[in-house]
C-alpha cells in the first residue's frame, strides 16, 4: 500500500512538473535563431579585442579575423531583419495544441508508467535485506517447517524419514517428549542407527533434566554397538559415569572421549572438567588441560574445598546441559567464538527455564556449576543468590545448594554454615 502511495506521488509530481510550463509558460514566440547568431558573433568580436589587448594575438592576424567575423555578423544581422518564413501562428491553434499536449501528458504518462510497471514489476514483494532475514527468518521457517512436517506425518505416520527429519528439530525446540517419540518412530520404521539411538538417548536425558537415565543409557549403548566411534554417545555415557560417581569408569570414559575428539570439539571443555572431577575423586592430580576454563574448574574443585561433603550433592555432578548430536556436529565445524556462543546459549536456555520454574534444585546446581566452568564467577554467584531466594531459607533444598556452592569453592564454608 505504502508502495502504491509513493509511486502515485512520484507520478503525480513528475506529471505536474511537465504540465506546468504548458499551462503557465511564456506565450511569446521563440526568438529567431538569427538574433542569436548576431549575439554570438558580437561576443567573438569582443573576445578578439580582449586577446589583442593582452597581446596573445598578432595585430595583423587580429585584423583579418575581425574582418571575417564582421562579414559574418553583417550577414547574420541581415537575416535577422528579414521576416521569419511562415508568419505568425494563429493563436487559437496554439492553444488547442497546448491543451492536446497537456491532456496527453496527464493521461498517457501515468498510464504508460503503471501499465508497463504492471508487466515487469513485483509491487507486493518486500525488500529482503540479509540483516533483516537473519533476524526473523529462521524462527518463522522452523515453525512453519515443523507444522508442515507434522501435517504430513499425520496423513502418513509410516514416513520414517519424516520422523527422522522432525526429531532433531523437536529436540532443538525443547519438545523433548516429542523428540523421543519421533526418534522411536524413526528407529521403528527406518531401522536402528547410531544417530537415531543417540538422538533418542539425548531426548531421554533432556526429559530427565540432564540425568542420563537407564533408558537413555541403553539407547546410547545401542548407538555404540552400531557405530563404535559415535562420539556423542560416548560423551553421554561418560557423563552417566560421572553422574553415578563411578569415578574410575568416568575417568577412562572421559579420557577415551578426549583422545578421540577432534581438537576443537565443543564438548572438550565439559569433558575435561568431568575428567578433572573424576581424577580428583580418585585422588589423582588434575591433568594438564588444554583450555583455561576447565583449568579453572579444576582449580575450583581443588583439595582445599571439601570433597564429597554430601552424597546428594555429588549426584548432580557433571550434570551439564547436554548438547544434541546435531548441534554437536554443527559445533565441531564452528569457529572458536561461535562454539563458545553455543555453549553459552545452552546455559542461557537453562537459566531462562529456571527463571520460569525455579523449583528445581538440580537445575540450579547445574547452572551454577556451568557458570563456574565457563569462568563466569560473578554470574555463578548471582545464580547462587537467585537459587537460595527461590527456596525457603531453612529448607533442605536451600541447604543443599549452599553446600554445593561450598563444595565447588564458590562460597566459603562459614558463609554456608552461618545461615
Amino acid at each position, binding site marked *: 500500500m505504502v508502495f502504491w502511495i509513493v509511486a502515485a506521488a*512520484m507520478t503525480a509530481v513528475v506529471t505536474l512538473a511537465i504540465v506546468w510550463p*504548458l499551462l503557465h509558460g511564456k506565450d511569446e*514566440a*521563440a526568438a529567431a535563431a538569427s538574433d542569436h547568431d548576431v549575439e554570438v558573433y558580437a*561576443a567573438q568580436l569582443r573576445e578578439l579585442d580582449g586577446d589583442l589587448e593582452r597581446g596573445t594575438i598578432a595585430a595583423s592576424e587580429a585584423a583579418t579575423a575581425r574582418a571575417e567575423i564582421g562579414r*559574418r555578423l553583417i550577414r547574420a544581422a541581415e537575416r535577422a531583419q528579414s521576416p521569419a518564413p511562415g508568419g505568425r501562428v494563429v493563436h487559437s491553434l496554439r492553444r488547442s495544441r497546448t491543451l492536446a*499536449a497537456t491532456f496527453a501528458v496527464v493521461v498517457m504518462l501515468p498510464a504508460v508508467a503503471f501499465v508497463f510497471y504492471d508487466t515487469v*514489476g513485483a509491487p507486493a514483494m518486500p525488500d529482503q535485506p*540479509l540483516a533483516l532475514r537473519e533476524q526473523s527468518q529462521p524462527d518463522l521457517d522452523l515453525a512453519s517447517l515443523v507444522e508442515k512436517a507434522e501435517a504430513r506425518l499425520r496423513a502418513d505416520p509410516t514416513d520414517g524419514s519424516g520422523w527422522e527429519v522432525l526429531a532433531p528439530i523437536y529436540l532443538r525446540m525443547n519438545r523433548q517428549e516429542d523428540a523421543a517419540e519421533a526418534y522411536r518412530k524413526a528407529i521403528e520404521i527406518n531401522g536402528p542407527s547410531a544417530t537415531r539411538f543417540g538422538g533418542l538417548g539425548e531426548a531421554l536425558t533432556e526429559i530427565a533434566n540432564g540425568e542420563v537415565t537407564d533408558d537413555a543409557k541403553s539407547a546410547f549403548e545401542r548407538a555404540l554397538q552400531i557405530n563404535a566411534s559415535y562420539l556423542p554417545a560416548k560423551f553421554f555415557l561418560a557423563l552417566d559415569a560421572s553422574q553415578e560417581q563411578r569415578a574410575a569408569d568416568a575417568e577412562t570414559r572421559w579420557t577415551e572421549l578426549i583422545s578421540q575428539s577432534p581438537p576443537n570439539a565443543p564438548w572438550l571443555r565439559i569433558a575435561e572438567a568431568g575428567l578433572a572431577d573424576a581424577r580428583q575423586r580418585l585422588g589423582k592430580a588434575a591433568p594438564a588441560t588444554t583450555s583455561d576454563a576447565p583449568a579453572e574448574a579444576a582449580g575450583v574443585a581443588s583439595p582445599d574445598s571439601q570433597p564429597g561433603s554430601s552424597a546428594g550433592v555429588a549426584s548432580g555432578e557433571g550434570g551439564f546441559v547436554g548438547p544434541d548430536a546435531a548441534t554437536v556436529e554443527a559445533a565441531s565445524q564452528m569457529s572458536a567464538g561461535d562454539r563458545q556462543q553455543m555453549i553459552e546459549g545452552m546455559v542461557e536456555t537453562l537459566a531462562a527455564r529456571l527463571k520460569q520454574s525455579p523449583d528445581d534444585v538440580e537445575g540450579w546446581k547445574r547452572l551454577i556449576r556451568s557458570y563456574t566452568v565457563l569462568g563466569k564467577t560473578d554470574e555463578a554467584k548471582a545464580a547462587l543468590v537467585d537459587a537460595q531466594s527461590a527456596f525457603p531459607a531453612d529448607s533442605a533444598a536451600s541447604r543443599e545448594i549452599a553446600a554445593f556452592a561450598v563444595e565447588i569453592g564458590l562460597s566459603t564454608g562459614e558463609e554456608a554454615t552461618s545461615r
Partner: protein
Amino acid sequence: MIVEIGHFALVLSLSVALFQSVLPMVGARKGDQRLMETGTIAATGAFVLIGIAFAALVTANVTSDFSVLNVFENSNSAKPMLYKVTGVWGNHEGSMLLWVLILAFFGSLVALFGRDLPATLKANVLAVQAWILTAFLLFILLTSNPFQRLDPAPMEGQDLNPILQDIGLAIHPPLLYLGYVGFSIAFSFAIAALIDGRIDAAWARWVRPWTLLAWIFLTLGISMGSYWAYYELGWGGWWFWDPVENASFMPWLAGTALLHSALVMEKRSALKIWTILLAILTFSLSLLGTFLVRSGVLTSVHAFATDPTRGVFILAILCIFIGGALVLFALRASSLEGGGLFAPISREGALVFNNLFLTTATATVLVGTLYPLVLEVLTGEKISVGEPFFNLTFGPVMVPLLFAVPFGPLLGWKRGDLLGAAQRLYFAAGCALAALVGILAYTGGTKVLAAFGFALAFWLLAGSLTDLFSRAAFLRTGWRTGLSRLIGLPRSAFGTALAHFGVGVTLLGIVSVSSFEKEVITTMAPGASADIAGYTLTFDRVEQRPGPNFEAQTGTFSVRQGGGELARIETSKRFFPVRQMTTTESGIWTHGFSQLYVSLGDPSPDNRSIVVRIWWKPLITLIWIGTVFMAVGGAFSLADRRLRVGAPVRSRRKAALAGT
C-alpha cells in the same frame, strides 16, 4: 519496498523520456515556446528518477538483498563493503543502469546550462537525447532488468567475478561511460542541426566543451582500464588490442579528431559538414563499443554478458541510430551552408591533416576489430586479429601524425608560415637528434627502430612546449616579461601544449617498454634468487593468508642491488571459493618511472617450487602519466574562459563590459 520504488522510478523515467522525445521537437517545429519548455523539465525529471532507481539498486546491493536477482548473481554477504557498492556496475544490468544514469545526467546538464542556447536548438537536442534514453531504457527494462526479483530469495549470493573486485575496476567503468555517453551530446547537437537544416553560430561553441569533457573522461577511463589490465591480469601487458579495448579506443580516436575539427569550425566556420559527420561517427563508435562489450559477439576477456537477445536488441539500436543519423546526414548535409576557405599550409590545414590521419587510424582499428566478425559471417572461417596486425597498420599511420603535431599550434590561421614554424622547432629537432644518437650509441646500433621511437617522443615533448615558449618570447624579452607573458596566455594554449606533451610522455613510455623490457620466467623455491636488469630478486617465502572472501597464497620477494635491500614485493594468487576462481595479484615495485613486476604461476608437481614470472618494465608508468597530462591539458582548455561549460553567451556581454 525500496527496490520496487526504484523499479517503478525506472519505468516512470521511460514514460517521461517518451514525452521528452516528442513534445520539445513538436514545439521546435511549430515555434511553440511552451512545448519546448517541457523538454527542460522532462530531462531533469528523468535524471532524478533514474537517480532514484540507481540509489535503490545500490541499497539492495549494500544490504545484500538477495531477493533481487542481480544482487544474488553478483554479490555475496562476505564481499567487502566497497565492492558491494562498486559491484553495482560490475555486472551487465547494473552497468547499463549507470550508462543511462550518466546519459540522463548529461541531458539534465544541457537542460540546466543551456538557457542561452537558441530555444529551438535546445529543444531539438533534448529530444534527440531522449530518443537515445528511451532506446536504452527499453533495452534495460526488457532484456536486462536489474530489478528482477527472486522468490523465494536465496540466503547467499554468487559473488562478483573476482577479477572485477578491484579498485581499478570500480572507477574504470564510470569514467569510461562518462566518456562514451558524453559524446552523445555532440551527437544530439549534430542531429538537431541536421533536423533544423542550419548550423547556428553557437553550435561549435557548444559542442566543443562537451566533447572536451567527454574526451577527458574517456582518456582517463581508458588509461585506468589499461592499468587495471596490467596489474590484475598478471600478464604484464598494458594493451592487448583486445576488441573491448579497441571498442573504447575507437571513440577516443574519433573524439580526438572531433575536438580538433570543432576548433576549426568554431574559429573559422569551416569544416562544418565534416564536423557534423564526425560527431555522428564518434557517438556511433561509442554505441558500437557498448555493443561489442554487451553482446559477447567477440570473445574477449571483458565481455561479461553473452546473451543473443540482448545482442539483437543492441544491434537494432545501433542500426536505428547510426543508420538513421547517416541517412539524415546524406539527406540534409547538402542544404547546410559550407564554410570558409583556407590554404593547405595553415592551422586549419594542420587540423585537417590531423583529422585525416586520426580517422584513418580509427578505420584501421575498426577493420581489425570487425574483420574477423565479418569474415566469419561471410565465409565461416575463423581468424584472430591481434597485435601484429595493429603494429603493422596503426603504427605507420600514427607516425606522420605524431611528427606533425608540434607544427600545428605554430601555424597561423588561414595562411601559415611552414618555414617559420620549422625554424622555431630547431630546439625540438636538436632534442630528437640527441635522443636518436644517444640510443644508437647506447645499444651499439642494434635498436634502430627504438632509437627513432625515442627521437619521435623527444621531438613531441620539446615541440609541444615550443609554442608556449615562443609566444612568451623569453629569449627576446627576458625572463621577467616572458613569465608575465606566459601567464597571460590563454589557458587553451596551455591545454594544447600539455595535451601534446602528454602524447609525447605516453609515447616515451611505450617505446621504452617495448624496446627495453626484460623478462625472466623461472621456477623458484623459497630462498632462490633471480637476476634481472641489474636487480637481484630473492624469493623469501610463500604463505597462506586469509582474506575477507578469498584465500591468498602470497609470495614475498626482496629486491637487492649490490647487497642492500631496496624493497619487498608481495604477489599472490587469490582463490575465491564462492566462484571457485583464482586471480593473480601481481607484485609491482615502482622505482622512478620504471617498475619491477612479479607474478606467480603454478607450483611444480612436487609442490616445492613455483613458476615465477618477472619483468623489468623501464619507464612504463609514463604511459599512464602521459594520459594524465592529456586529461589535464583538456581540463585547461575547458577552463579557458571562452570555453567554460555553460558560460552563457549573453551574460558574457556584461562581463566584458565590467572588465573594460
